[in-house]
């Protein structure tokens, strides 16, 4: 992930912040000044967001300009194992929180998530079949315990209506 530290990333994020700041500024300028309510113009809702938008745009511009200078040092090679693990984690977490939670009972969604997560991320092709079964069994126990445990904790003890 060291590629994210590069000046190129700074250039891109600098431009993103510049655009975000400008968007906030324009949105604030066009915001309702509530003149029909006869408020003092200095207290219009857009005053502070407008200023902040302008400041962010300025900081973004500075960052982008600064990153135009030639980069120092060598770029580290991309670590694909790391990236693959990251993508798996991100995919599983988003899939669970956006698709499963709310559509399945919470305990079931959590059990599936914990089981799949542990199994996939602990998977090692070098494992013996025996070790693999042990890992699967551990994942199943952990999934059942955490799914049911967290559900009971929140529903029965904290009286939360679960999603």
């Amino acid at each position: 992930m060291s590629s994210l530290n590069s000046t190129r990333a700074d250039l891109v994020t600098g431009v993103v912040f510049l655009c975000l700041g400008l968007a906030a500024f324009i949105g604030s300028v066009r915001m309702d000044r509530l003149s029909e309510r006869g408020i003092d113009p200095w207290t219009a809702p857009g005053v502070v967001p407008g200023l902040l938008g302008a400041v962010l745009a300025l900081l973004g511009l500075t960052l982008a300009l600064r990153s135009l200078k030639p980069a120092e040092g060598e770029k580290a090679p991309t670590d694909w194992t790391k990236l693959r693990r990251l993508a798996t984690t991100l995919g599983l977490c988003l899939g669970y929180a956006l698709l499963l939670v709310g559509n399945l009972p919470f305990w079931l969604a959590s059990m599936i998530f914990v089981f799949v997560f542990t199994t996939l991320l602990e998977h090692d092709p070098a494992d013996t079949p025996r070790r693999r079964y042990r890992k699967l069994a551990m994942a199943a126990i952990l999934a059942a315990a955490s799914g049911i445990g967290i559900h009971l904790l929140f529903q029965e003890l904290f009286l939360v209506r679960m999603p």
Partner: protein
Amino acid sequence: MFDSFVHLGNAFLSLATPTSLFYVAAATFFGIVIGALPGLTATMGIALLTTLTYKLPAEQAILVLIGCYVGAIYGGSRTAILLNIPGTPANAATTLDGFPLARAGRGGEAMGLATASSTLGTFVGVFALAVVAPMLAEFALGFGSYEYFWLAIFGIIIAGQMTAFNDPLKGWIAGVLGLLVAMVGQDGIHAHARFTFGSTELAGGIALIPALVGAFGFAEVLTVLSEKKAEIASRTIGKVRPSLSQLWKYKRTIGRSGLIGTGVGIVPGVGEDIGAWVSYAAARRSSPEKEEFGKGSLEGLVAAETGNNAAIPGALIPALTLAVPGSAPAAVLLAAMFLHGIRPGPTIMLEQPQFVFGVVWMVVFATVAMGVFGLLLARPLLLVLRIPRERLMPVVFVLCVIGPYAITQRLFDVWVMLAFGVLGFLLRKMNYPMAPLVLGIILGDLLDKNLRRALLLSDGDFSPFFTRPVSMILCGITVFMLLVALAPVRRSAGRLVSMAFGR
């Protein structure tokens, strides 16, 4: 003065109940475990516990959160010493000397000394909390909108600069981003919906707890799983008991680091991690054994662990008296206080003086529990470090999802958590500090209301911002800090970092 003693006594009596003692012991232990687990930080532990203690009475809930805070900042030292990875960001400086000591088979000695220094550091800070908080509150009673405006600006500038001291620009961007996040939703004066794009969910604003659970929980899950696995330094740790003669030898370092840590803690948004670094750098500068630093110096370890724990009570001082958090964990604590109907701010010494002194005792109780657990449970705590992260992190993520949901019971907060998690992860990978972002979300409302109110009062005249005495001072410091951040002085800050890292 006499009143203070009465409040202090009353606060002690109301807290010294078996229930409270049980809560503080359990919470501190939980905090130590959270801190020791790499990837689980104090901020995240407190944020998750806020959701778990939502139904408790206010005082008990805050007691639990403070126990977790104190425990976690200390617990992270275990991981720093044994695994060479800071359990929480506050223990980064501890790794420099802690890990070499553990590799040399002196892990137990290092852990014992870290426990003693953390305990003493917290006591230095808590003394300052008891003395400074009431004075600061009284002083802040004279603050008007002009002063609050400068306080917000000062907080963002200094937090942005100190938490990212090799690149203040990124710290400021994070801070301004946080301020802008706070602009979403109804404004505090006219209740006009801003940047809501017609969404009723956004009109309620972006709540701090889901944002924090995302930025410190989900983002950490992503970070931890993409990093390499760490190994325990040595299986032999030796005895975990600090010797009094050693502590006496480092009394100056402990005193200095305690004061530095507390002072750094008071500065808005600048917390335990910087407290440890600055203490470490100062100890190194004045030590006769400079060359030992970074190779297993006991003095370096003492400085770092005293400095980070002293910053805890320090960070609570502005949180209680100005409603401006001194660190990221203190920001969550502040949000939790508001959730429980406590109103931190300059009037707290008039409205709820006993609560302030209650907090003093809460920190003291938690510190005692921390010291006892730290010395007695050294070996069981080693087991915690052996939990595979592939099994821990999915459970943590389930808690990250259900925690924010439990407070408001709306799925929107889960989406906020996810968004801040991904955003936090990306920003962190690009070396943006998270503390100014959090501070920005809290200070946004303060800045917004007070700037507009001030302009209304002065009828658009800007001069009171520069002529009122306190405003003038805050403005002066802010401008000074901005100037200091420019290139030449940044180079010397860079030297400070390289000095702390032992080059």
